[in-house]
């Protein structure tokens, strides 16, 4: 593969994998079962990134199931979200290049909701920090935090160098996190991820004291702990499947830290909220059902985005949830989200139930943020 006999895309990919293997001291390359590719928004790629992808697509084809991260816009409904035709044209070319490579172009940060679902101890090569933390921790699969090009290289060869999270010895917890706080809903779990991430950085935590957590709560927690700490893996005693020894180092998280985390993500006071967005990471069907219940018979007065993978929205279409949501004036933002769409300057302040959404909303889009529950998001939207 390295010689170029299988084409330029495979050659380039092997060069990347071999270099990474050497840097991290990997002994060999191993097979991966699936890949999740980041670096999809034209906003981040620019013309050169697009050119790179088109070059790869000349003779490259993926060898394993490969899915895509969110794009910079809804691929069908971009006009309704205020995206310029120039941006749309470039973004479409990016997606065409990915499609030519044989990648499944449902752009979402929740590949596990749309059929890219690895099993326990399966080796994969995923990018998207929230999906990486979810796959390693909740599903018990094995992946490093890949970047866009290294994930593509894995997809085009079906291989990844064996280092880091692929080795059992590197997956042991380093710190016990005892949680002494009552948690309920995505906002609480987002705040927990913020509080833990800020304290332990990219260490692997064994979290104790959580009685139950829904898939939606684990999804938002994965996003938050990866954003504010940088970890690729955590354990929650009694909830996640992985096995680890109990480390000696121990910290505690109480109601006080949870409240401080919530406060840290709220800086919108004095600024009028002009964008409400939920679905970071992308909504589950259960969340869409709840949104429909909350919005029934109401009318939103602010720009309201519900970010979701298109296949999940199609289930909501069939169930009638979408009609209720759209009748209330809220907009679906499929294939994209408030963190990767080019929204800088269009809105001043964002209300969201996502801790990760607060970070990226403040960073790339320069919003003030109001961090609140899903119910409070809807109240804000209709107020």
């Amino acid at each position, binding site marked *: 593969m390295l010689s170029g006999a299988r084409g330029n895309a495979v050659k*380039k990919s092997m*060069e*990347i994998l071999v*270099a*990474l293997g*050497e*840097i991290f001291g990997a002994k060999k390359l191993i097979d991966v079962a699936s890949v999740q590719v*980041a*670096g999809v928004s034209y906003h*981040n*790629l*620019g*013309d*050169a*990134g697009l*050119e*790179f992808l088109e070059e790869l697509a000349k003779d490259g084809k993926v060898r394993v199931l490969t899915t895509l991260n969110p794009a910079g816009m809804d691929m069908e409904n971009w006009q309704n979200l205020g995206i310029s035709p120039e941006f749309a044209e470039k973004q479409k070319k990016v997606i065409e290049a990915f499609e030519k490579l044989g990648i499944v172009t449902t752009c979402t940060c929740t590949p596990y909701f749309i059929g890219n679902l690895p099993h326990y101890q399966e080796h994969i090569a995923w*990018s998207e920090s929230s999906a990486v933390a979810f796959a390693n921790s909740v599903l018990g699969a094995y992946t490093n*935090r*890949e*970047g*866009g*090009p*290294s994930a593509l290289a894995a997809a085009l060869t079906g291989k990844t160098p064996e280092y880091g999270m692929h080795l059992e010895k590197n997956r042991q917890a380093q710190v016990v996190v005892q949680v002494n706080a009552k948690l309920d809903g995505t906002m609480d779990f987002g705040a927990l991820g913020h509080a833990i991430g800020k304290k332990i950085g990219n260490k692997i935590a064994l979290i104790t004291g959580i009685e139950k957590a829904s898939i939606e709560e684990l999804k938002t927690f994965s996003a938050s702990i990866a954003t504010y700490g940088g970890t690729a893996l955590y354990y929650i005693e009694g909830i996640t499947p992985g096995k680890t020894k109990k480390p000696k180092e121990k910290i505690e998280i109480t109601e006080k830290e949870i409240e401080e985390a919530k406060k840290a993500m709220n800086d919108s006071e004095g600024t009028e909220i002009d964008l409400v967005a939920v679905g970071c990471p992308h909504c589950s069907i259960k969340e869409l059902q709840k949104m429909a219940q909350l919005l029934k018979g109401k009318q939103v007065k602010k720009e309201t985005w519900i970010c979701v993978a298109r296949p999940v929205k199609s289930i909501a279409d069939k169930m009638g949830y979408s009609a209720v949501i759209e009748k209330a004036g809220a907009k679906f933002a499929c294939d994209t989200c408030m963190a990767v769409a080019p929204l800088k300057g269009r809105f001043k302040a964002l209300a969201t139930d996502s801790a990760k959404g607060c970070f990226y909303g403040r960073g790339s889009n320069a919003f003030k943020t109001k961090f609140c529950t899903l119910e409070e998001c809807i109240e804000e939207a209709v107020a």
Partner: protein
Amino acid sequence: MTKLKGRKICPGKANGEAIVSKMGISFYGGVDPNTGIVVEKGHDLEGKSIAGKVLVFPQGKGSTVGSYTMYRLKKNGKAPAAIINKECETIVAVGAIISEIPCIDRIEIEKIKDGTIIKVDAENGTATLQ
């Protein structure tokens, strides 16, 4: 003439003037892909251009999108001629490979002064200071 020996990350040869930073570099958000000028606030290279230079810095940092920023620099003719790191990490390694920028690491970069003319032979992992 001093010859420093390190490790190959991306093969190739280049000659150029050294621009030396003591800080990590985040290409995404930290370097303007159209001009090659470092724009990160408070960075020791802020306001300076890395285009055509032998860029010497400890290691990369920040978003993995940085690899694509390096590719954009190359396409715009604003990429460094070569990169010398203390310890190379994923973002810079991948960026150098896809952009075909000669890159070596495990070099005693403290020995390199701003403005020195350097010959980089990445295949052999060497940097020769003129």
